[in-house]
């Protein structure tokens, strides 16, 4: 893109929302600190921003946070990869074979409406207290948004585009590779975006229920010892993790589906 040169003032004006984002953050932290002071809320209920930062730095210095963050990150990412991979594969199969869609659709709807997270205790029972049970939970919650979006995305392919390939004696495989799969990408990414955030959620919930490592387990321990500043500092890590995952996914999406209209494909 070649854009005409902008003066410094114009550039600042064009990017003013970034400044405002920072300003809102500062305002938030400021009013947090101030309201604690004004309402005299005790620090064993809500810590001040400063105490949170101190707990965060101390946690990382002692190495506890590094290890636990790493564990949760691995669980989430593995779960995400397994769950979305399975969702992608099954969504594709359902979209390609009418009979599979008809047979499995009612079950999928039934399973979709079930709060998957309620199965977490069972998965702990089956897979144990280690990382594998968290990976399983993360995979389970990541699976559905990808499945549904992949299915819908493949079906969204333009009929005329499909006819175009058919009119050239194109095979089903060619229709899939050249038309349906590319058409599905904006939907797929909407699903992946949700799945990534869900998989972090799944890992944390799993760690709440039964784990010795991970940020979820850490929150439980800190909560029990009434180290509320510690809990808050872990929440900060989780927030950064979630935002990081989302931003990374968006960056990939923009590169892959640059051609798509900018309408937002909300996850179904």
């Amino acid at each position, binding site marked *: 893109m070649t854009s005409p040169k902008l003066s410094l003032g114009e550039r600042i004006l064009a990017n003013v929302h970034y400044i405002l984002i920072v300003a809102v953050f500062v305002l938030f932290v400021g009013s947090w600190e101030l309201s604690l002071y004004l309402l005299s809320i005790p620090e064993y209920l809500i810590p001040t921003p400063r105490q949170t930062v101190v707990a965060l730095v101390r946690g990382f210095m002692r190495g506890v946070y590094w290890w636990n963050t790493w564990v949760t990150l691995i669980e989430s990412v593995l779960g995400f990869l397994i769950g979305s991979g399975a969702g992608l594969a099954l969504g594709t199969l359902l979209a390609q074979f009418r009979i599979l869609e008809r047979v499995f659709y009612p079950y999928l709807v039934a399973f979709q409406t079930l709060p998957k997270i309620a199965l977490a205790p069972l998965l702990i029972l089956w897979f144990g207290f280690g990382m594998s049970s968290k990976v399983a939970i993360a995979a389970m919650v990541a699976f559905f948004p990808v499945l549904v979006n992949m299915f819908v995305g493949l079906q969204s392919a*333009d009929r*005329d*585009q499909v*006819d*175009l*390939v*058919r*009119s*050239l*004696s*194109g095979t089903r495989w*060619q229709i899939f590779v*050249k*038309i349906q799969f*590319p058409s599905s*990408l904006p939907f797929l990414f909407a699903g992946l975006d949700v799945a990534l955030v869900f998989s972090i959620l799944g890992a944390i919930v799993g760690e709440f229920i039964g784990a010795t490592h991970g940020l979820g387990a850490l929150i439980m321990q800190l909560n029990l010892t009434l180290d509320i500043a510690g809990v808050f500092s872990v929440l900060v890590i989780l927030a950064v993790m979630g935002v990081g995952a989302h931003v990374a996914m968006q960056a990939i999406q923009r590169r892959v*589906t640059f*051609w*798509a209209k900018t309408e937002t494909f909300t996850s179904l």
Partner: protein
Amino acid sequence: MAFIKIAELGKAYQTIGREPIEAIADISLEISEGEFITIVGPSGCGKSTLLKILGGLLRKSRGEVLVRGEPVDGPRRDIGMVFQNSVLLPWRTVFKNVMLPVEVLGLEPRQYITRARELLEMVGLSEFHDKYPRELSGGMQQRVSIARALIHDPSVLLMDEPFGALDAMTREHMNLELQRIWTESRKTILFITHSIPEAVFLGDRVVVLSERPAQVVEILEVKLPRPRDLDMLATEAFGGYAHRVRVRFRIKRGWE
């Protein structure tokens, strides 16, 4: 022997639990090689169905469709299709869109690179090689799709209201362009439209279809000299042809 022969063609769509819908009642038509045939008819009369049967995308219910004496019972390699919307793939550049048929037909891409360039030049878009479809106007997009339909050098071009979505000025311009492309490439063209002036301007013969289920109402030979230009639109001869087509339309609709 006719290059394309359509004899007593009929098409009914089967619907679940209801009577089948008759789209085409009876169409018979013989087309010689290199001819420019325009087909006019009221909206929803089954024009597109006819084209899809010729392109092998739909099965006929009755009758016969032959190209070079061979029955059409599926897609053929020597047919190029142009749809009402340009149907460009938004994730491909203009050049890659034009090359799509080469890939699908399993031809050797290297042998078609030059041809793709030439075709883009012919439709006046050589500067737009690496642009994406959304960066092009509607008229330009449709020109890309014409280049794409010609890349594998088909002998027949099936065009389904290709300029229907364009504004009047662009449309006239595209009609001139298409006439030039036809003169240069000598394809047999079947061109569907619901614009009477467009049909008369482009066609060697104008086939007027009835409302659904489609039947041939009249086949009108247009003996206007070629190349035709826009000034011809104002002549008495042109008006006479357009009037005759219009009259056939009205009779069929029972307005007179």
